[in-house]
């Protein structure tokens, strides 16, 4: 699952723009992920300028 490291995130929205499923959203100054829509493709975690997103295995 996608883990958002809030203390690292700069809430820039770059991840929101590349998410193919529209699963991420920047609400005011915090980032949210909709686990129902997230397909765990990892694109957002790859492009994050600060490394605030991490894909962790479920097990």
């Amino acid at each position, binding site marked *: 699952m996608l883990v958002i490291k809030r203390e690292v995130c*700069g*809430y820039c929205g*770059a*991840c929101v723009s*590349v998410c193919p499923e529209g699963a991420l959203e*920047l609400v005011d100054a915090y980032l949210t992920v909709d686990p129902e829509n997230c397909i765990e493709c990892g694109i957002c975690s*790859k*492009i994050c*300028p*600060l490394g605030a997103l991490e894909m962790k295995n479920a097990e």
Partner: protein
Amino acid sequence: MQNKYDVLIIGGGPGGAMAGKAVAEAGLSCCIIEKRPAIGAPVRCAEGVGNEISELVDLDPKWISSKIEGALLVAPDGQTLELNPEMAGNEVGYVLDRKIFDRELVWKAANAGCDVFVKSRASSAIIKDGKVCGATIESGGKTVEVYADVVIAADGVESKFARWCGIDTTVPMAEIETCVQYLMTDIDIDPGLNAFYLGREVAPEGYVWIFSKGERTANVGIGISGKMCKEGKRPKDYLDAFIAEHFPNGKIIELIVGGVSACKPLACTVADGLIIVGDAARLSDPITGGGIINAMYTGKLAGEVAAECIASGDCSKKALMKYDTEWRSSKMGKGLKRNYQVKEIFIKLKDEKLNSIVNSVNKLDMEIFDTKYLIRELVKYNPWLLKDIGTLKRLLD
């Protein structure tokens, strides 16, 4: 907040503000909603603009951090190329103070009669019979439905509103520039020059910029391609390395992060009851990443076209297409198309070829600075250009 406006504008950046002003000046009701608690902050921008901004708005000196008289290009091998206004055809620009600039643009819209609400966020689109009719808005803990004849999506790089209306706004991973910038002080810079550093080691498929914010202070930032970004090689890692080398004693007083699309514009920037402007329509320049002027121009145009269509009682996609057609055939639209193709060529160039180009430009007689001369001389020194990038000549013809 009323529950019905002629035009509802999602986003209070330069695109949304210009749209709001244009709609209000046409005598129609409109409302800008901004999800952040403050207009203009946090900044997500390097703040550089060309002097053509004055065609869109009367510049107020207090919006300007620095006047730019030229650019310094630094090749991967450290050779420099200085472009001053005489060479670039008298092009000068500015580094803005966007905290002030954005707020004043919204003030202009408000003074013209446009409503403004901050900390108010669109959470979904209201769509009836395939037509966009408004938005559900979360504001101060309340959820309200706001209807409009036209919604203008000016929601920036995230571009969620258009997505809720069924338009795929996803930026391909290889075409997002992922960026980090520090506002630095106590550094040695030339306050009249903006500097650009190129090279795979410095900024793969991107560049480092130093945009002057005045004496001894600058936006020092980097954008790299999303496809080059990985753990340990993120833009912040490259920027920290650059700063350790160039400004080890500088002080960082602000951290700015952002994403800039370097893809083609959306295939269509209107739908029934909807117009998409600026970064949300993927209108940032694919080479420079600049998006302020494009957002302002399309925001203003969107406001004008929305007002015309409302007056004629037809806000269908077909009627709103006037907006799409007009920006595509404008100088901006043609420039975006050309720059996308040029970007595609340049991101593939190896460092030694970039060095070679900069080296040969330095040999040119800058008194005779015209495109044909430039190309002829470049090809003379770099015959591989014609073979490798045959399309370049056609593009510049």
